[in-house]
């Protein structure tokens, strides 16, 4: 556990020092400006969080892909031997990605009550927003990991796969069948309805976690032959 955590720290340090975080941060700011340039009226906060979670998926995917690609290929081999086994290097990359994306999601959660909402919403709205952004981070990590350099060495193919994957998920989730893919459109629709936390969230979270877990298991399996 300790080598994995310290290796995750090394990866985050490299990511921040390389200034690659500027790219998803600019993406995050753009989404915040689009959503909150005019203040959100009371009662409309959770739908805004729903839109934010849906629009930030490619930002979290970008952050994940950027972090996993910061380390040169040969350094990954050194990191594997330093950490003791390949699984620890893979786990460290995913943990580091989760931390960076969580930091960005935190900004997306606290900026609106500070400057985007007309009034500070209640706990239920904040919890709903938190849950939606956790699902968004999870989806972004899965998408970013599958388009990272160990899986797709060509940079252009990787970028197209990441953005194309997001668009495909959006289009598929327009269908009325919720379980077909990560139900991003359903997140947005459900966030505007009553009793989101108790009625809609459990089902949406289950489907989202299932697809993301499948994607991450695929990533971990592919990394066994792509160190």
């Amino acid at each position, binding site marked *: 556990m300790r080598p994995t955590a*310290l290796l995750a720290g090394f990866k985050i340090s490299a990511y921040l020092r390389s200034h690659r975080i500027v790219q998803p941060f600019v993406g995050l700011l753009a989404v915040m400006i689009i959503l909150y340039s005019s203040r959100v009226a009371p009662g409309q906060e959770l739908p805004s969080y729903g839109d934010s979670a849906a629009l930030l998926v490619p930002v979290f995917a970008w952050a994940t892909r950027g972090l996993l690609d910061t*380390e040169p290929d040969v350094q990954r081999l*050194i990191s*594997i*031997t*330093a950490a003791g086994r390949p699984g620890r290097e893979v786990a460290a990359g995913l943990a580091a990605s989760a931390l960076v994306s969580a930091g960005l999601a935190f900004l997306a959660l606290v900026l609106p009550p500070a400057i985007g909402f007309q009034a500070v919403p209640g706990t239920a709205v904040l919890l709903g927003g938190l849950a939606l952004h956790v699902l968004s981070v999870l989806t972004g990590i899965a998408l970013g990991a599958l388009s990272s350099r160990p899986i797709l060495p060509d940079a252009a193919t990787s970028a197209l796969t990441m953005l194309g994957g997001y668009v495909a998920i959006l289009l598929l989730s327009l269908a009325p069948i919720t379980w077909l893919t990560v139900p991003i459109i359903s997140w947005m629709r459900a966030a505007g309805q009553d009793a989101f936390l108790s009625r809609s969230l459990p089902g949406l979270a289950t489907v989202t976690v299932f697809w993301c877990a499948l994607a991450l298991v695929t990533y971990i399996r592919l990394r066994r032959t792509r160190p």
Partner: protein
Amino acid sequence: MRLANLSYRYARRAPWVLHEVDLDLPPGTVAEVTGRNGAGKSTLLRLLAGTARPSRGSVSGRPAVVGYAPEIFPVEQPFTVSAYLSHMAAVRGTEATSMERWVDRLGMAALLDVPLGDLSKGSAHKVGLAQALLVPPGLLILDEPFSGLDEQTRAELPRVIDEVAAAGGIVVVSDHQNGLTAHPGVTHLRVENGTVRAVALAGIQDLARDGSPGDAPARSIIEVLVDAGDAEAVARKLQAEGYEARIRGEAR
């Protein structure tokens, strides 16, 4: 440590890079791996280090602590030498002060505050060696360790290798520069046609002396006369092509 029936290829239908390799590396072994470019030396080292998985067969008895120094150290990282080695020491569960010993022995004192991206090839190589040695390794993998090193470090490296072996560690060295050819007690492994086989040192010495190859496949000695000043450059070019090339002395 044992490689049993080990085969490796990059993709399901790709040709075998290594095929049905059996190899025993008992504790204290120092093995020098030679072979032409693309023969599979680096692949063999990565399989030994555990950074690549065999397509078939197994690697058993790999020591817990593995040090791996790559042929080309990746300098495209936003750290100074000191910060990088501190991170690697932390990941390996040791104090950052563990780097001090290797900073002294490898002549890196002036490099500590230098960004990795500003290092010369030889200096970067030293960082690659130092990180592999931060914790006494049970298995030390060195991919072309003599490449680009200054004379002092070239002389120090065999001593470091002997120390690791004396402590019961296994050292495997890919070596185009023949830095360990005459080193006593070295097991010589040749990677050729997807196989790995031990070559007796006597065979190599015989070949150098009179051209008789012993139990090695037929090989020839060619004489190349060059200006004394060019000798080292020509020898390095031939070594880079995968040939065994040595400077024998000056002709009158």
